[in-house]
């Protein structure tokens, strides 16, 4: 492999890995803030126990999100210096603003929350965790604005003399229609992830039984399940809008998602196609008639452009070359994203039904699926990201710069290989440690509080340094 392939693999590995922690952080920080609020309002000890229980899991996860995020900021310069020079006038601003507005907020107030149990006024302590939650969402917005610019560049002019894209309307970058729909879609997916994380662990505790444990974790099952379901609806709605905007801005990505080679009107949505994905041979296919037309255009008989026509159109516009992304990857990641997201919602629905029906212990089958539950949205998120980024290829900035032109010209394959192996091994080792810690704390039953509230000012040791 040469430097460009290695740099692409490294970006993929480090980004997908980083994005395992981000959605949990975003979803769970708001849920922990919600539990903390419930404790503040009602004074009920169980909410305090739940706040600390999920607070601990949140912190273990947050730490990994932070340290892997540092790599993200620097690897644009390390591996993609030509890209950084080309877009720095536009792309750097959201990153810098993210740091100033979001990172400072998150990290400073998280420190206050962790160490402030007995030092801060209660209201301010509660506000701290909310500010952390707000910070994580602000951060997501600026990153997605930057990414959306790569998907659909707006508010810039190409300067021939300097050979780079230059910003002329920052408002347009922040209100990019792709960003405006990607942000709610991603945040909804984050809540789905955080909710599933909570629901899965709480269900597991319900099976283990014991009256106290059941009492304690029942509200968490409810909160988790409702969060997943509401988020699933939001994911669906925003995903649908996103599909239409994607068809408008990046028709090739939509065609690739469906492996639709020839323009069709109406176009059916392929639920599953077995065959060769180069479009030469279709063995068996399950299709929803008119489905893709509706997904892509909002009307049942809308025309959806196929890969071959788009390839021709792009060749005329941008010159010779292949403008097709990797079709099998885009086709399958698109489906797997939807499948895993839908599965998590289904399990949440069943769980909620059990709880509502007043059944004390949910079925074994349901609890077993609970173990997989936190993993399902993580898979959906990863496939969603891979789809979004792979579907954009060969472009690093759609229509402006191809990925192969963005790589650092002076960094040799040896250096990239060294860093890729380093990060892969390091991330692998850290994953083992993190999962072990998460499992240990997820299984632990919060100790029942003894003594009056005042003696409980300090949370248990694992919260602290």
């Amino acid at each position: 492999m040469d430097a460009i392939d290695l740099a692409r693999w490294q970006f993929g590995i480090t980004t997908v890995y980083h994005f395992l922690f981000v959605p949990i952080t975003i979803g769970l920080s708001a849920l922990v803030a919600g539990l903390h609020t419930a404790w503040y309002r009602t004074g009920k000890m169980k909410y305090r126990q739940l706040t600390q229980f999920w607070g601990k899991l949140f912190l273990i996860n947050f730490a990994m999100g932070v340290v892997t995020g540092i790599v993200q900021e620097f690897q644009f310069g390390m591996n993609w210096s030509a890209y950084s020079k080309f877009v720095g006038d536009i792309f750097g601003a959201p990153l810098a603003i993210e740091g100033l507005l979001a990172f400072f907020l998150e990290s400073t107030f998280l420190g206050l929350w962790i160490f402030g149990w007995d030092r801060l006024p209660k209201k301010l302590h509660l506000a701290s965790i909310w500010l952390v939650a707000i910070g994580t969402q602000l951060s997501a917005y600026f990153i997605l604005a930057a990414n959306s610019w790569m998907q659909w560049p707006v508010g810039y002019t190409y300067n021939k003399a300097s050979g780079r894209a230059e910003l002329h309307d920052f408002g347009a970058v922040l209100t990019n229609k792709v960003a405006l729909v990607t942000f709610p879609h991603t945040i909804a997916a984050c809540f789905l992830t955080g909710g599933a994380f909570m629901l899965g662990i709480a269900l597991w505790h319900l099976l283990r039984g014991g009256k106290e444990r059941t009492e304690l974790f029942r509200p968490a099952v409810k909160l988790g399940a409702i969060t997943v379901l509401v988020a699933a609806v939001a994911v669906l709605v925003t995903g649908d809008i996103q599909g239409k905007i994607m068809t408008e801005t990046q028709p090739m990505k939509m065609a690739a998602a469906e492996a639709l080679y020839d323009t069709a009107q109406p176009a059916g949505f392929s639920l599953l196609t077995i065959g060769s994905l180069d479009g030469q041979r279709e063995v068996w296919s399950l299709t929803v008639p008119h489905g893709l037309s509706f997904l892509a255009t909002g009307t049942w008989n809308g025309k959806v452009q196929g890969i071959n026509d788009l390839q021709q159109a792009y060749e005329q516009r941008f010159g010779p070359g292949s403008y097709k992304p990797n079709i099998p990857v885009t086709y399958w990641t698109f489906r797997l994203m939807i499948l895993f997201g839908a599965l998590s919602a289904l399990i949440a629905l069943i769980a909620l039904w059990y709880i509502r029906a007043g059944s004390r212990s949910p079925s074994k089958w349901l609890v077993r699926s609970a173990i997989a539950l936190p993993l399902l949205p993580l898979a959906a998120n990863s496939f969603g990201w891979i789809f979004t980024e792979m579907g954009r290829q060969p472009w690093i900035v759609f229509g402006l710069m191809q990925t192969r032109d963005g790589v650092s010209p002076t960094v040799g394959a040896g250096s990239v290989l060294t860093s890729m192996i380093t990060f892969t091994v390091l991330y692998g080792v850290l994953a083992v440690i993190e999962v072990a810690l998460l499992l240990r704390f997820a299984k632990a039953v919060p100790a029942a509080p003894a003594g009056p509230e005042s003696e409980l000012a300090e949370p248990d040791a694992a919260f602290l340094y």
Partner: protein
Amino acid sequence: MHLTDIWFLLIAVLWTGYLVLEGFDFGVGMLLPAVAKEPVDRQVTLRTIGPVWDGNEVWLLVAGGATFAAFPFWYATLFSGFYLALLVILVALIVRGLALEYRNKLPDGAWHRRWDLAITIGSAVPALLWGVALANIVRGVPLDAQHNFTGNFFTLLNPYALLGGLTTLVLFALHGAIFLALKTHGPVRDRARALVLPLGGATALLAAAFLIWTQSYDGSWITWTLAVLAAVCLLGGIIASRAGRDGLGFLGTAATIVLAAATLFVTLYPNVLPSTTDPAFSLTTTNAASTHYTLTIMTWVAAVFTPIVLLYQSYTYWVFRGRLTRDDIPQAARQARAA
């Protein structure tokens, strides 16, 4: 004053803020084995930086982001050029960050000791390498006409840069020792105070040699003045600390770092990365910069939000003011099982 100059100044301020703030938490990490023998003392030591180190590290992320936004060519050349060195720094920061977050999650002596080692190494490596990197930026590196770095990893390991690295290493250790003297009572404070004189002596020698050598690159009466002021603050800080005036001592080393960083950035200006191949290939505040429009927006954002950030960060330091003792470590957290 042009916007490009303002942004050079702002980035210098962000780096300086980073070095002053994370400087002491690197120092605390490095000195952990030297100041804390008992497990409970290790907890006291780490807790001095517990609530603030993460916020301190964000200064680096903002400095990096601001460099990308204001001087994309500087960002691109620097980080692709210093590739392997930056990789080592990133690995160290990752391991250190996790170590600080995870070490107290389990009540297990062996677990603590392993993470403590990670904290010490993870603090020393960036403390050394940021100095090497800064010195190389001031000294310049081989750049071609397209401003691309044409050297290799070993280009960065020149005597001046290594001296710069050793200087930041001992300076941060001293800064950390004085911080610990300010923030603790008991055995940790005693040991930290005992380290001030040897560390202070080493810092004085190395920093003097490094700052005088720096003058040979683009020295002027301003950089000489700044360097002399840095030396005065360093001596003042050491004397104050010896006299038991911990707060004054800490201000002394903080001012030393500010003035030393100012010496470097003033020497560098108006370059942002000089080329040793041909001065004409150097990256400057003008040819590395973003457009006027981008800089204007960034200036507004920075003008509005920086004071807010400074306000709430200062508040954190205020909330966690006061000295820590063994009594501040909860009983439950002390019961580490020796493995």
